[in-house]
């Protein structure tokens, strides 16, 4: 877990601090696009049961 986090932090760093401005690394761009899309796909499965649970809760108490 720590290794993954260290890798993410390394990826998010400026690729060339000596050059002017922020130099994005290809891996940083790739993960920025892929991670939210995959997470969105995963959340589309998870939020269904949450919706069901909260719906029942509100239905009973609201």
């Amino acid at each position, binding site marked *: 877990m720590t290794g993954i*986090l260290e890798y*993410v*932090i390394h990826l*998010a*760093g*400026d690729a060339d601090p000596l050059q002017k*401005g*922020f*130099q*994005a690394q290809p891996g*940083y*761009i790739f*993960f*920025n*696009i892929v*991670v*939210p*899309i995959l*997470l*969105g*796909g995963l*959340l*589309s499965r998870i*939020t*269904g049961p*949450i*919706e069901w649970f*909260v*719906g029942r809760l*509100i*239905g009973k108490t*609201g």
Partner: protein
Amino acid sequence: MERFPTFFPIADYWARLQGGEPQLLIWALLVFGLVVGILTGFFGGGGRFLMAPLLNSLFNVPYNVAVGSDVCQMAGTSTLNILRFKRLNSIDFKLGAWMLVGTVFGVESGAQLLEGLKKAGPFFLFGKAISVMPIILGIIYGAILVWIGSVLYREARTGAGDMACEGFMTASPPAMTSKLQQLHIPPMISLPVSGIEAISIWMILGIGFITGLLVGFLGGGGGFIRMPALVYVIGCPMVVAIGTDLFESVFSMGYGTYSHSLKGNIDLVLVVLILISSAVGNQIGSLLARRFCHPRVRQVFAYVALLTVLLILFKLFL
């Protein structure tokens, strides 16, 4: 309380360059995402405009990182929404594809505008150095939130919010929309899925450009403009507008993510935390809206918007 500054390298990087320090706590970000998600789910797309200014005001995240990360988390939220959308056959792909052309130019223009503000040096007022970016963006977000808040407040007082609770769009079509629909600037295209015989391609590109500009410059609030534009300006049936808006949103946020990534404006750890918590909050908010929607309750958003504006002002001037 333990802080995890190194978990947010991009927010740290830009904040330090701009002479600040982000105050990011993981639990606080999760609670924040949940609350903004609930507000967005409950009050609709206007809630999206809360994310970036509040990230700046509450957590000291620089505006460029707040906007970039908001666009990136919206890419995930859009994926979630389109996967849960049951009526994919109602999407007008032809309309969506043409609109996307305008959107891509708009997103890039918005991101470049933000880049210009980011690179603009500070100006001096009464001997004090003030950055241009927070001032300009603070004023724009403040104006938008005051406008959204006043519209909802007025609707709540006049009873027009009843229709919003029933799931109808509340704003009545502006008088100019029928004139816009009659514009015949060639080339014209037909949109069979939307039931439109002929419409100027420039109108579609224009709407795409404006919504894209908002996304690139201010973050994930494009749907707030796109949905009424699809219904009232282009003349799409509501179900087609919803599907096409979702389709558009996935690609525009995807391009926005790419563009802001190149400029180093996205903090992925921040994105993951906000995406998870706001997605859960969004589901809760939309359920609460179905259960407790009342015009008076919708009035609450006006107060939330006002509070956010006060926080922006507090951050800017104190």
